[in-house]
């Protein structure tokens, strides 16, 4: 914030006012973010949130806070570590990094948003958009294509014969 204040002095009044507005907006955003963090900062909530994003590493394949077997060699220790980190006020990413370093990347219950892991999320999204585009294209193409010839090598009928059979079909299917 101070850097932007400093830079304002060298600008004309109009630009200054724009910058002031921007700074105010930034400040507001920051406040909102702080409040949001404060809201999320309740240690019990954070413990639960982060704990549900981690796995127990004993091999039970369960979410850390859902691991339910007494005598599990890992989950109690991990929960205590998590509680300690949350109480210390470590940020979410710091807590997660610490766990990844200690237990390996499989401790996180879902791929991260970094590196190749991002592909896990990107590919289904790409498939959704591509698929959507494809279906729209298909619908348009099929709509605009000429009516296919009647299957089975049938000749269209004309004249009185057409009218007679059209009439018959109409009557037989009337409600």
């Amino acid at each position, binding site marked *: 914030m101070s850097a932007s204040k400093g830079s304002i002095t060298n600008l004309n009044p109009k630009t200054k006012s724009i910058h002031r507005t921007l700074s105010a907006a930034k400040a507001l955003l920051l406040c909102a973010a702080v409040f949001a963090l404060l809201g999320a900062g309740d240690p019990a909530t954070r413990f639960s949130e982060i704990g549900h994003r981690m796995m127990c590493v004993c091999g039970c394949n369960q979410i850390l806070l859902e691991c339910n077997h007494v005598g599990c060699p890992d989950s109690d220790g991990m929960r205590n570590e998590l509680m300690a980190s949350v109480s210390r006020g470590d940020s979410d990413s710091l807590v997660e990094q610490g766990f990844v370093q200690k237990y390996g990347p499989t401790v996180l219950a879902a791929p991260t948003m970094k590196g190749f892991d991002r592909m896990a999320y990107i590919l289904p999204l790409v498939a959704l958009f591509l698929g959507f585009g494809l279906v729209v294209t298909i619908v348009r193409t099929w709509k605009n294509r000429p009516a296919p010839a009647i299957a089975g090598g049938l*000749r269209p*009928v004309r004249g009185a014969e057409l009218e007679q*059979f059209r009439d018959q079909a109409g009557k037989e299917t009337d*409600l």
Partner: protein
Amino acid sequence: MMWLIICLALAVATFFYVFYLPGRLFLGPEKTRAGYLRERKDAVYENLRDLNFEHKAGKVPDADYTSLKSSLQDEAATLLAEIARLETNPVPQKGTRS
């Protein structure tokens, strides 16, 4: 030893069941072109009834109803005409058999 006898009896019984064919074989209806066209006619009729119903239920507006019904009736008429031709003037056909 007992199991050997059971297995042997089993094999003989199976062999007998599979290969002893004394009766008449059921070969089923041979699908004819007229039969095939009738199936298609039934499908078009179903679509027509469906359209009538959806129109009455308020899903298809009058303008669309008229044009859709007309095209379905054309399709049905083509099929009915061909079926009628086949029935009045039976020619051995194997067009739809494969």
